């Protein structure tokens, strides 16, 4: 990879100022697992690499009963997977993060790094969107908060503006009774990127769906929330027929590519099958 200068700001303010000063020439590094690979392949050639590892509280995971979960962008996938509050209150996230790559990557890769990369093949985004996550973006002059589903724009493109650093992911306190499911389909190795990833949550009682969230990865240029598919089930009595329809609508709503993990046609088929299976799992969890 090309030569670069390595800077280690001690505060968020300092990091934002450095980023503003160096503009296009700089990239932020947290865990570095994705950034390093791109730099090694010379797909990204920053002259300045700004590490956020020394910023205090950048990888904290905090929780309270009303506000919900606040995850510092520097938190490792492994820390999120294993956090007691996640295991207790956010089972869908625990399941999602458990499946990210494998332990060695989860020990190093951060959630902030993952989200900012905007890679539609990766796992965390769908689970977080299904839990109504929002992200905080800070720059030298201020900050803004954005729903995660609006943060992903296109292949490796997010709404991160020049000079901004993603600092926190906020996941609201979940509904009292929530059915959930996360399915990651890989054709060969379980350590691979998903050919199709599905995250689904359901709330309701007595066979009636009050609300639903369906998020999918690897089947469109960005990780997306399948709102049209959701509307099939929302507010309705849950029947096998409606679940099947939700799967069919989701299969039409996605926009997969032909690649060596599968043809677009096959991926649409998988979306249909897996959304159906996810709904089944979520219903079981809702009932129990």
């Amino acid at each position, binding site marked *: *990879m*090309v*030569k*670069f*200068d*390595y800077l280690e700001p001690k505060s968020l303010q300092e990091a934002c100022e450095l980023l503003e000063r160096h503009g296009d020439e700089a990239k932020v*590094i947290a865990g*570095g*697992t994705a950034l*390093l*690979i791109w*730099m*090694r*392949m010379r797909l990204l050639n920053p002259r300045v*690499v700004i*590490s956020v*590892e020394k910023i205090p509280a950048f990888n904290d995971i905090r929780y309270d009963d009303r506000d919900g979960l606040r995850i510092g962008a520097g938190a490792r996938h*492994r820390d999120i997977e294993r956090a007691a509050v996640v295991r207790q209150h956010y089972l869908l996230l625990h399941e999602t993060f458990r499946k990210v*790559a*494998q*332990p*060695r*990557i989860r*020990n*190093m890769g951060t959630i902030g790094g993952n989200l900012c990369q905007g890679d539609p093949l990766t796992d965390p985004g769908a689970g977080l969107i299904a839990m109504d996550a929002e992200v905080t973006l800070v720059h030298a002059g201020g900050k803004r908060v954005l729903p995660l589903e609006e943060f992903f724009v296109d292949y490796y493109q997010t709404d991160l503006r020049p000079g901004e650093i993603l600092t926190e992911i906020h996941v609201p306190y979940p509904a009292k009774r929530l059915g959930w499911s996360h399915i990651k389909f890989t054709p060969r190795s*379980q*350590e691979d990127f998903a050919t199709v990833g599905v995250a689904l949550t359901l709330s309701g009682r007595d066979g009636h769906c009050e609300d639903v969230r369906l998020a999918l990865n690897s089947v469109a240029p960005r990780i997306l929330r399948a709102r049209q598919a959701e509307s099939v089930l929302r507010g309705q009595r849950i029947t096998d027929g409606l679940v099947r329809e939700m799967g069919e609508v989701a299969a039409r709503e996605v926009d997969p590519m032909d690649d060596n993990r599968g043809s677009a046609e096959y991926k649409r088929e998988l979306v249909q099958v897996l959304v159906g299976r996810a709904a089944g799992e979520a219903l079981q969890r809702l009932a129990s």
Partner: protein
Amino acid sequence: MKQTVRVKINGRLYEEEVEPRLLLSYFLREGVGLTGTHIGCVIGECGACTIILDGRLVKSCLLFAAQVDGREILTVEGLAADGTLHPIQEAFVQCYGLQCGYCTPGMILAAYYLLKKNPDPAEDDIRKGLAGNLCMCTGYVQIVEAVKAAAKNLKSRI
């Protein structure tokens, strides 16, 4: 512009000047001279470069040397004490848990990390714990046996 890296490796403190773009794997192999950490893919897929950083299992090819300033590393060379093999290493020898040996340092550290977290793993747990370490020679069967034997060795050592 070079960075100074002060890092403890296998209990010994090293201080070196490095180019920021130097990967940790190369730092260990060439800078420090510990060639047990191997490079199989250089993009974090194969696990041959696995080491333990501040008690966590990580891939050294996905870290810049500069990122480990002030931290502590364990490589495979740090396991045997005074020429006596660590029980995990001994288990790999006895159970024939290797063929060409290239994946072995990474496998052993992955086993070390697994057994620290779960001293009594079932076969499934072992396979999950080693899933990030590829081996092209063995088909994994004798590696799994070695980890089972290692678990036994470690338990009887207490």
